[in-house]
């Protein structure tokens, strides 16, 4: 199955700053997905990142707040911009993995905004 390397694994950031999270996959994938998991909550899809096109954002998420890059078929970044304490969450990337007929997730980035 696909192996996803996500970093940083955790960070503590000052409000008003930005953090870029990286996601590297060991195989080429068409779509990559970014999720947010707020404390004690389930996973909410932020956006779908396709190589060579703009990311598609879900309702309630906007590009200015969560800009996404997808420069090639194995890599993507998610930036959390102008952070506030409400952005404290775990952010996860995911890919559809044909090898397991399912979806594989990165280990997540635990973000705390102070």
């Amino acid at each position: 199955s696909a192996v996803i390397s996500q970093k940083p694994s955790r960070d503590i950031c000052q409000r008003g700053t930005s953090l870029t999270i990286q996601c590297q996959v060991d195989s080429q994938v068409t779509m990559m997905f970014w999720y947010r998991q707020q404390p004690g909550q389930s996973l909410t899809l932020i956006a779908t990142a396709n190589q060579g096109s703009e990311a598609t954002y879900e309702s309630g998420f906007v590009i200015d707040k969560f800009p996404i890059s997808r420069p090639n078929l194995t890599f993507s970044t998610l930036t959390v911009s102008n952070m506030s304490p409400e952005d404290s969450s775990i952010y996860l990337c995911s890919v559809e993995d044909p090898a397991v007929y399912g979806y594989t997730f990165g280990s997540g980035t635990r973000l705390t905004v102070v």
Partner: protein
Amino acid sequence: AQSVTQLDSQVPVFEEAPVELRCNYSSSVSVYLFWYVQYPNQGLQLLLKYLSGSTLVESINGFEAEFNKSQTSFHLRKPSVHISDTAEYFCAVRKSDKLIFGTGTRLQVFP
């Protein structure tokens, strides 16, 4: 539209007891259903999935789930739980190439 409902936010059980974690979905088209497990301070792991074929699917660690089209359910079961099964369990449905998650069920196994 497709959505997933997990009615139980927490399920406390004693070790070696059976457990059922409930999941219902709403869909007007073919469904692909998944159960993921999240151990404390870890990422998500695929536990099992239903894509087609046999309605009973099993995982390597003793969990099983049955796809029931008439009841639109995909409940997760284990006949005898271990302390190590303590985790958050998420049911999910595939929608337009994306995974939509239920709210999760916290399984707490007590000795």
